[in-house]
């Protein structure tokens, strides 16, 4: 298994790294890999896979409660895990830089940018005099694409945009010229165009300065153009490692293949397959292969012993007893053009919608939704897409304009709509963690609308709840549970079930998959498509063009509160007219 590390005694060498929670429960274990100068490694896994734990363990840091209990991390000739106190402090930053996930929280709100940078320089013996330090500072700022003037240095983090904040994080990491940089999902919180720019900057810096990088991500598409090599993690183990091209063209591990099959791609409509089940929590891992219970190639042997990562001579490794060796077949789907050209009374039409809070967020927006179609509303943060969705749902405030529903006037406030109308328009929220009352069981949550709209109570209600749970692929036993014992995906399913019980004709989905892992997202999208086939009309709000391609019939692009383009999905995505749409498409990560 160590073939590769022997070939390339590079910048970083990790051997048998193990991080535990109290009670000898391992979060990650058996991690070994190495990295050469200038090489960028993508570390991919879903939530709970241990990727962040591994990333920070590279800096000899474990989050509260966890402990690094074994293994070695060498950066150059420094054995990082054996360092303590002052020596460890110096190694952090100067040997390995770290870029955290959310720059908004990772920059101290009370300190100026210049202060942070200077402090970082001063914390390490750089041998630079004052002049040279200032020089280094300016250089670094330029490198990461930030202004280098005095005024900028005097700014506070909140005075910067998200992209600028993340560039500051990059500058803080690069200013010490470390040999390795660990980046923990640094672009998740950013818009696609910003993300694309940051990734480009990062790649340029690593290559020009010969800095190795470990880039942690949950999204394979994001890292496709960035990294040289990919390492896939599942349940605290490395399940596959390969060069980028090999991994994307011929993934070996069933999990890797599952992930790739679950990712919607902006470049073309494809069939999405969810991975059944969900990842085991630390301490609840099954005997043998952790992925076993979710694996379609599961055999009795898989349950016996944990498969080890087998490296081949080409530096490719997979931890599976029965790895695939073919290329992944992507099933492209034909465009759905059925609705095109059909002139019918629209189910919903919005005209001249303006919404303003302390500033105006929507300007004269008009749109129409045909019965049975799925209209996607796409935009970056601040585009007003959520305000639009909320206004249609009757939750918006300070909205003006006309709504028509099935030819009838639709009041702007949910309360003013009559019950018969209200149940037909349902809304599903982005955050599944706050969408359900934590003090009510699933059954209470679900039965309430039944009683409210249809007066259905008792046994019939119970039957309907059971039926709808089945429809959203949840076991009937969920009904007795409180939300806190459900996972995010399950909660979102309950939320969908609640909407379905109202027998809606129009379902408004506000970024309902953005808080979920891709494999879960695929299953939710699958469910929505199913519903759509059953005749449900949908308004789908998202920032992800891949999702748009996967689910929508038509798309409407919003930019800072104005509609810049709308049309059939394939028309817009394949032949964008507006410059803005084109930029969005260019920057959207794709698997192709």
């Amino acid at each position, binding site marked *: 298994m160590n073939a590769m590390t022997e070939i390339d005694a590079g910048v970083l060498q990790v051997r048998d790294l193990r991080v535990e929670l109290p009670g000898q429960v391992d979060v990650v274990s058996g991690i070994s890999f190495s990295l050469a100068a200038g090489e960028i490694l993508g570390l991919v896994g879903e939530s709970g896979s241990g990727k962040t734990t591994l990333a*920070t363990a590279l*800096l000899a*840091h474990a*989050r*509260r409660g966890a402990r690094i209990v074994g293994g070695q991390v060498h950066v150059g000739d420094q054995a990082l895990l054996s360092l303590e106190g002052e020596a460890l*402090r*110096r*190694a*952090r*930053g*100067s040997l390995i*830089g*770290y870029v*955290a*996930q*959310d720059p908004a*929280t*990772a*920059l*101290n*709100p*009370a*300190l*100026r940018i210049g202060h942070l940078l200077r*402090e*970082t320089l001063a*914390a*390490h013996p750089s041998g630079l005099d004052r002049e040279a330090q200032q020089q280094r500072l300016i250089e670094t700022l330029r490198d990461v694409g930030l202004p280098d003037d005095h005024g900028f240095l005097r700014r*506070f983090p*909140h*005075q910067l945009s998200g992209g600028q904040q993340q560039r500051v*994080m990059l500058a*803080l*990491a690069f200013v*010490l010229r470390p040999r390795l940089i660990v980046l923990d999902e640094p672009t998740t919180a950013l818009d696609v165009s910003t993300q694309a720019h940051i990734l480009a900057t990062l790649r340029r810096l690593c290559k020009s300065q010969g800095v190795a990088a470990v880039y942690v991500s949950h999204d394979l598409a994001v890292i496709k153009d960035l990294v040289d090599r990919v390492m896939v993690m599942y349940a605290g183990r490395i399940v596959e490692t390969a060069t980028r091209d090999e991994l994307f063209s011929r993934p070996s591990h069933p999990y890797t293949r599952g992930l790739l099959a679950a990712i919607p791609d902006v470049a073309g409509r494809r069939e999405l397959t969810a991975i059944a089940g969900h990842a085991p929590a630390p301490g609840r891992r099954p005997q043998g292969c952790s992925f076993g219970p979710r694996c379609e190639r599961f055999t009795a042997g898989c349950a016996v012993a944990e498969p080890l990562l087998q490296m081949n001579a080409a530096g490719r490794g997979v931890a599976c007893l029965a790895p695939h060796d073919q290329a992944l077949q992507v099933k492209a789907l034909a465009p759905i053009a059925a609705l095109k050209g059909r002139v019918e009374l629209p189910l919903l039409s919005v005209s001249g919608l303006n919404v*303003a*809070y*302390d*500033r*105006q*967020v929507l300007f004269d927006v008009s749109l129409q939704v045909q019965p049975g179609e799925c209209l996607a509303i796409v935009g970056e*943060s*601040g*585009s*007003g*897409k*959520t*305000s639009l969705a*909320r206004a249609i749902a009757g939750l*918006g*405030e*300070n909205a003006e304009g006309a709504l028509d529903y099935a030819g009838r006037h639709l009041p702007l406030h949910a*309360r003013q709509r009559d019950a018969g109308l209200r149940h037909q328009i349902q809304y599903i929220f*982005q955050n599944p963690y706050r969408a359900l009352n934590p003090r009510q069981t699933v059954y209470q949550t679900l039965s309430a609308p039944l009683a409210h709209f249809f007066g259905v109570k008792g046994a019939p209600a119970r039957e309907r709840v059971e039926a709808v749970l089945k429809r959203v692929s949840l076991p009937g036993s969920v009904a007795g549970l409180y939300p806190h014992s459900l996972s995010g995906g399950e909660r979102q399913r309950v939320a969908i079930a609640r909407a379905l019980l109202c027998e809606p004709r129009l379902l408004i989905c*506000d*970024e309902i998959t953005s808080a979920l892992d891709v494999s879960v997202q695929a299953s939710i999208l699958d469910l929505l498509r199913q519903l759509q086939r059953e005749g449900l009309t949908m308004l789908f709000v998202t920032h992800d063009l891949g999702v748009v391609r996967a689910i929508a019939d038509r798309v409407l692009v919003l930019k800072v509160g104005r509609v810049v383009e709308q049309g059939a999905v394939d028309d817009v995505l394949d032949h964008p007219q507006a410059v803005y749409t084109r930029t969005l498409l260019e920057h959207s990560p794709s698997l192709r």
Partner: protein
Amino acid sequence: MLEPANPPRTPAWLSWFIGRLGYGLLTAWVISLVVFIATQALPSDPARVILGPDAPLESILTLQHQLGLDQPILWQYLRWLGSVLCGDLGVSLDSNAPVSRILWGRFGYTLALLVGVIIVVVPGALALGVALALRRDSWLDRWGLSLLIFLKATPGFLLAIGLVLLFSMPHMDFLPAVSILDPDLSLLRQLKSLVLPIFALSLTALPYLTRMVRAAMIEAQESDYVIAARLRGIAQRRIVWCHTLPNALVPAIQGVALTLRTLIAGAVLAEVIFSYPGIGTALNAAIQMRDLPMIQAIVLVITLAVVLINLLADLLTVLLTPKLRTARRVTLIQRNRRGITPWWRRSRGDA
């Protein structure tokens, strides 16, 4: 609707501050009005209290007239307000001395007491809170917390009585059990007399602040920016002092303001117990004696002090929070803020 093209030249917090100042003064005025009306509702008559049991009715009527007690309440209030605005707080019904003269010295003593408590408690709570936060879940932390809860629960005046009891025992005379102050000597030379009251009040104030600092420190210590700083190789000491503390300080400032407010109430009891000649004893006495000008003046002073304290705390919060300091419109302060919109009319930014 749209943001102004040019940011205003004066910082936004200044206009906010002026607004808050006006609001505070309004609060003080309303309280003075309420208290004035309330004291008029006192079932007894200051004239009788002053003159005692032997006074004949004629004397009482005469005094009532002299004190203006026989006039309509509103008129009395306006007269009082008018003279207060001219800086005249009136004359004490009890001692016939000008209220401002009596209160001036007492106010100074109470201020000395409160300042003393703050000098003890703020660094104490910071140090203790930081220490406990850094040793979270250690035995020190657990025992420290238990002790703090105990102190928090014990009524403050019981602590004070205990101290008096302890220090009036033989061989405990290195500290005066009661704090009679000699106005001839400067307070600095009588610091010994301040020790026990300050100690008693500090004990009651310490738990809240310490726990607040501890919680804020723990929150800050676990924040992303501290982890990021640590992973940049910034030294622990520097992280604590430069990164964590400034952020933990902001809630602590509101905590100090709240503490001061409760301390003013606590001072009434403590001053009575230690015979400390401050505002608290004066208020208690004035209430007993129905000395309306005194009650009015003390209430006014206390209200203004609280308003001022809150204002200062808010101002410090704004100034210490860069995001608020540099904002175009300051809208932080939950207290007194007009408006978190009701939930069905709530504005929401784009998510």
